[in-house]
């Protein structure tokens, strides 16, 4: 059975927010839209985003790491947001594992957002329905789009290609291989939600310098040494005083 998901490579994410606004611009005008903005030009503006980037500092100066962490619905295999829904609006699609909300059934009671341990659901105060990442389900099957564009908007946008998309149940899919080989991990697996989205950790490239690498046979300074033969010296030498 298919389980579509994202793999997010924290090793290359620079925190640019391209995924955040690309998601919003695609989805606000699509079937999952619109995505409201309150106080769009006023105090404390706040709007609906299916995807947000958080930034963390780890460690103390000077060994500080700055980590950008994009977060959206993880499309759990066992999503706690589904069974709590009193109307059946919150559901997981059988065919591809995407977790969606049927706006026609949703009463905006927010049980699902309380149940979600990842805080990735977004209430629309104006439509009074719960909204969330759809993995751009309206793009990925759209045959009017070129095949290489049938991907979530965030994946298409990402300048560092930190966002990979595919089927985590197919062991041969590129993202399954990446998860396996690059140390992909889930968020808070202890909750038992089996998140489908995975993250790839930071990886460091270091250089090891051996002492002998600083010695070079062709050290150009050698060319600056005086070369060739010199004329005989005028000053006294051993030749003047000894016959051996």
């Amino acid at each position: 059975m298919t389980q579509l998901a994202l793999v997010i490579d924290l090793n290359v994410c620079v925190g640019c927010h391209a995924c955040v606004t690309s998601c919003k611009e695609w989805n606000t005008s699509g079937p999952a839209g619109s995505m409201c903005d309150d106080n769009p030009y006023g105090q404390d503006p706040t709007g609906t985003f299916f995807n947000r980037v958080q930034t963390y500092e780890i460690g103390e100066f000077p060994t500080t790491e700055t980590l950008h962490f994009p977060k959206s619905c993880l499309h759990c295999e066992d999503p706690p947001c589904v069974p709590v829904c009193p109307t059946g609006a919150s559901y997981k699609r059988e065919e591809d594992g995407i977790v969606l909300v049927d706006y026609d059934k949703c009463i905006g009671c927010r049980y699902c957002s309380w149940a979600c341990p990842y805080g990735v659901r977004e209430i629309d105060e104006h439509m009074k329905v719960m909204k969330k990442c759809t993995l751009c389900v309206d793009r990925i099957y759209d045959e009017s789009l070129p095949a290489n564009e049938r991907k979530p908007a965030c994946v298409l946008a990402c300048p560092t290609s930190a966002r990979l998309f595919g089927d985590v149940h197919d062991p041969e899919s590129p993202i399954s291989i990446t998860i396996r080989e690059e140390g992909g991990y889930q968020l808070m697996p202890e909750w038992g939600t089996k998140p489908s989205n995975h993250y790839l950790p930071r990886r460091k490239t270091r250089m090891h310098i051996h002492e002998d690498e600083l010695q070079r046979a062709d050290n150009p300074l050698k060319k600056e040494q005086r070369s060739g033969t010199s004329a005989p010296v005028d000053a006294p030498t051993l030749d003047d005083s000894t016959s051996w």
Partner: protein
Amino acid sequence: MPVVHNPIQPPEGRIEVKNTTCYMCACRCGIRVTLRDGEVRYIQGNPDHPLNKGVICAKGASGIMKQYSPARLTKPLRRKQEALRGDAQFEEIEWDEAFGIMEERLKHLRETDPKKFALFTGRDQMQALTGLFAKQYGTPNYAAHGGFCSVNMATGMIYTIGGSFWEFGGPDLERAKLFIMIGTAEDHHSNPMKMALSQFKRNGGRFISINPVRTGYSAIADEWVPIKPGTDGALMLSIIHELIRTGLFDREFLTQYTNAAELVSTDEQSDDFGLFIRTDIPLDPHCFDPQDRVWWDRDEDKAVHSRTEGVEPRLLGEFTLADGRKAKPSFQLLKERTDQYNPEWAESVTGIPADTIRRLAYEMGITARDEKIELPIAWTDAWGKDHETITGNPVAFHSMRGTAAHSNGFQTIRAMSILMTILGTIDRPGGFRHKAPFPRPIPPCAKTPNSIHGVKPNTPLGGMPLGWPADPNDLFVDDDGNPIRIDKGFSWEFPLSAHGLMHNVITNAWRGDPYTIDTLLIFMANMAWNSSMNTDEVRKMLNDKDDNGEYKIPYIIVADAFQSEMTAYADLILPDTTYLERHDVMSMLDRPISEYDGPVDSVRIPVVPPKGDCKPFQEVLIEMGSRLKLPAFVDKEGKRKFRDYPDFVVNYETEPGSGIGFLAGWRGKGGEKFMKGEPNPNQWKMYEENNCVYQYHLPKSYQYMRNWNRGYLNWAQEHRLMRFAEPINIHIYSEVLMKFRLAAQGKTEGKQPPAHLRKRIETHFDPLPFYSEPLESQLTDKHKYPLNAITQRPMAMYHSWDSQNAWLRQIHTYNYMYVHPSTAQKAGIEDGGWMWAESMHGKVRCLCRYTEALEPGTIWTWNAIGKSKGAWRLDDDANESQKGFLLNHLISEELPAHEAGEHVSNSDPLTGQAGWYDVRVRIYKAEEGEENVSYPQFNAMPALPGTEKTNKWQAFFAGLFTRGGK
């Protein structure tokens, strides 16, 4: 509001898809815009575009909210007669009237004293047209924003290697193994850098970021090396010291492709002291950099003509010529210079441990040597020698405003360019690569007039408004050595100010130093806010009056698409279009989007009609050029030559019949030529059919070593990219700089600096890079102001144009002052608490945020997130004005009075680059009971006529939004 039954079913509507070029920042990515019922539904990266290959950034994807911003200006506006400047009281007028006002004014000024008209533009990617307009008008007072952005990067590199970062060159991360990023935050540039960085890391490259702050790109660095601001030059020089000491330099590259082995006269008594020893070979008058220098032959122990086949020159030593003159190779002089800059010394300046500096040098040197690349690409050098391969030493660098925006930035960047050179990385795989039309001669050929005779009524300027001085006689000064430009560019105060000094225009014009002007036309630059230093005072100057009650700057015209802070100070506002509503060119005559492997230029083509009565600024210039009968815009009878801007782009030629125009692609009657060819009436269509881009891939053998690649140089000359086809040898030792120093020492016949500037010129025009503390620091009491304060730009607000954007402002609604906890705690400032930052020029109250990702002697904030109350059509209580702030209030546009003068710009003394990051500050806790708002505050700016009302909430849904869907 649509209600969704089917999560897959697209909403109904008429769909159109059009290609154009983004302008949410200055990177110029290709975009594909989907419209639904005529409204923008989706902006994606164009997958077929060479620059961004389908990706897009946070800003690019938020273009919809720029297009439909309520802050859009839609009518020409005239300041109400009774209203004061700055009060933002305007009345709507028609374009005809606006043109009439400008025509009358500008015509009179052109007939009497054309320098009384000044045109300064925020963006510098439209200079092909704006520069042409200024030149044709005959005013020397023109520049774009480069002087307060990164002119040190351009000049420091171009005066050394003939090319520079960003538009004209960059790091080859496809083949590099080690990448050093220094003084780059999250911008310059955007998507191409992000794409390259991730690819580089995935290929196993090692990425080291040197920066006082760790955010953005630095976050994913394998190693972060925190450094004190303004000390980058000390680090570079120390690394050079180590590389020379250990022999980890590329001798072959240095001898053949630079002036490292060329002998410099070191005889203080001789007339040519400090200049290159020259042979008496006859000079080719058509040559910009004659090959008449001398080497010291290592085997024969005598002077020989440079680059004599088979000769091994000496790089080190002192030699006596046959005539008794003493001389040393440039490289010996570099070694002597850097001898003093050992890592222990650099540690004391930069705060980077000496062992780290040594290791950085070794990593660079060893990677360059042991990871050498040999590409099987045959090429011929400029001296006719054939090579079987292209060599690369895969160490790449990138740097931007962090190194540039200091008053010691030029010499810092000279040092960096020399570091890149001694590693042997210039225009080689894995190192630095040029982008057409670079490399160019050192310095490039364009020159300003060099006397007041270049400025005459009713006559085009007798030279370019901006240029590249090669010696003191190229300076644009009057017979007494005084500045001719209002910004004092190309004068003895800032001889190499290749991009002008826009940051001093208002202050100088206000003071009448060197003279007063009449009309100031500002395009797309927020000089009453984040683009000016000393913002508060500059705002006062903009509405200051003389004793007769007349404004000191009599007339100000502002062209902008939005209700910026600057519009409040206009007498006349010209509403510009957005990028989605206009034709534009990214021209080879300006800053095209070339790739490493060949020239690329591109266009914008409107995807939606202009809103209201807004008009592209280019159309304004074409109209004004025609009305004023500027020669380039009218025929012999004085009749208008070009219908509109698109017509101009197709048919304008730099000279009649030159075949060179704004666009390089599809020239010739049928579009069969490129770079040079007759105008093609279908040129726009051909761009439209080709993703709005023209791309040419050079043959592989022309793609590298272009400074010295005969094939490339001949190709460039044939296609009129360059007048010369001669080698462009790298200036380790800069004779250009030495000529200015000699003038300052009174040792030359030509132009001489005024007495009070002699010492400044002599000190800073050092032919070899050196470290000096930034000027502002030298003039500050550092015990009182112990900290450095700097800004960065966040990726989602790169280029700071987007607080009017409902989506982007949710990412950056206001800015904190970032302070290291130890520094903040010493001052008793809490995390999240209100604090003051104060320099000797001013103070700001702001919110503090603790951070460990910061060199503790530095504080920093995001640039230009803070806005003035009411500007950009934000509510008066918007966070941008109530919690956000500008660091600009702490930074002066002029240095405290010192021996170089009372009113000298706070800039690099060579180039006029604004010293944004030189300011020194102290911090303290805001008192209990103080107002919890940022300081300073300004009167609220009322909504301008023609802007829209804002709503408490909105829900964008393409096709319904502008028809009441909000």
